[in-house]
């Protein structure tokens, strides 16, 4: 989902940067509020960021014959709400832009929007909806993380289609083209991300029930 350095026209790069800015401000406030109101959960917040750090470093092969990486942003979004992930995801993307030449400074706004904003908000919405409809915790967590992963890549495809519409078939043609590169490849990876997020939530319930209670996450679920 990394749009490479310089691969968005300046207007698009600036627009996505502006679109991401309010979410980053909101995210910084959320991080400050979480650390102030729930000092006990600080280490869990850092761990949610660490989860995104690991998962976005892993290039995994896919059935389409290409490879890509998960994002790991769903976990933090369902534990702490989606806002904090704007900041944690931005740190991951900045690390990769500066040290790995993956993504870039000019495309940072667009990449933050797909991975650190769109993904976490989808995760949060899907999780709340699934739980409201009575889905078991594991199913809600799985769907939240997997669909957030897919949503991130769909947003990237849309960003590229907006910047580089097909000369004949326009935005939709380009969306199909970039979507087939990103979204199909991502399906098995989204499954992997969903399963790993369920695994971590299981471990949290087992060993870290106090921290989850502090955040009022899945109250009453005990192993």
């Amino acid at each position: 989902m990394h749009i490479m350095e310089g691969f968005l026209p300046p207007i698009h790069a600036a627009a996505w940067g502006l679109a991401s800015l309010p979410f980053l401000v909101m995210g910084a406030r959320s991080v400050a509020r979480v650390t102030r109101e729930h000092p006990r959960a600080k280490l869990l917040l850092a761990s949610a960021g660490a989860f995104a750090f690991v998962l976005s470093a892993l290039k995994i092969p896919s059935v389409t014959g290409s490879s890509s990486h998960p994002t790991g942003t769903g976990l933090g979004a369902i534990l702490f709400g989606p806002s904090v992930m704007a900041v944690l995801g931005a740190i991951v993307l900045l690390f990769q832009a500066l040290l790995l030449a993956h993504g870039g400074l000019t495309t940072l706004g667009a990449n933050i929007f797909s991975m650190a904003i769109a993904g976490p908000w989808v995760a949060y919405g899907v999780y709340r909806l699934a739980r409201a409809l009575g889905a078991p915790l594991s199913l809600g967590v799985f769907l939240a993380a997997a669909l957030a992963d897919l949503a991130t890549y769909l947003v990237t495809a849309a960003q590229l289609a907006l910047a580089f519409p097909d000369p004949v078939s326009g935005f939709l043609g380009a969306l199909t083209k970039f979507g087939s590169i990103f979204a199909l490849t991502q399906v098995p990876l989204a499954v992997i991300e969903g399963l790993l997020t369920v695994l971590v939530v299981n471990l949290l319930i087992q060993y870290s029930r106090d921290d989850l209670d502090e955040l009022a996450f899945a109250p009453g679920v005990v192993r």
Partner: protein
Amino acid sequence: MRRINLWLVAAVLVVAVLPLILPLPRGLAEPFAGADAQAQAAITAAQPDYQPWFRPLWEPPSGEIESLLFALQAALGAGLLGYYLGLRRGESQRGKPDSDRARHSDRARHDAQAVDARD
């Protein structure tokens, strides 16, 4: 619970390894190329006159250095996550009265008393 977690790990391994075993789709320029690079190639193919207007400030000088930094990223994340889970697991077990740990510390106290008595 432990069994469910083992099944989750097994399922992750199957989904990750399966593409390497299954026959590759035909007509691939390079097997398992990165999707990001493919998207970049698609842009250049559709608009050959597009020039990236900014270059990365620094690029890893070789594939080895790049994989070093990716490994570092994964290690930092996994290290912190493992530290957190280990810390909380230890804390949750300290609370249990009849755990191995409690028994060991009982014996340690007993031994210490024995030493005291000898003095």
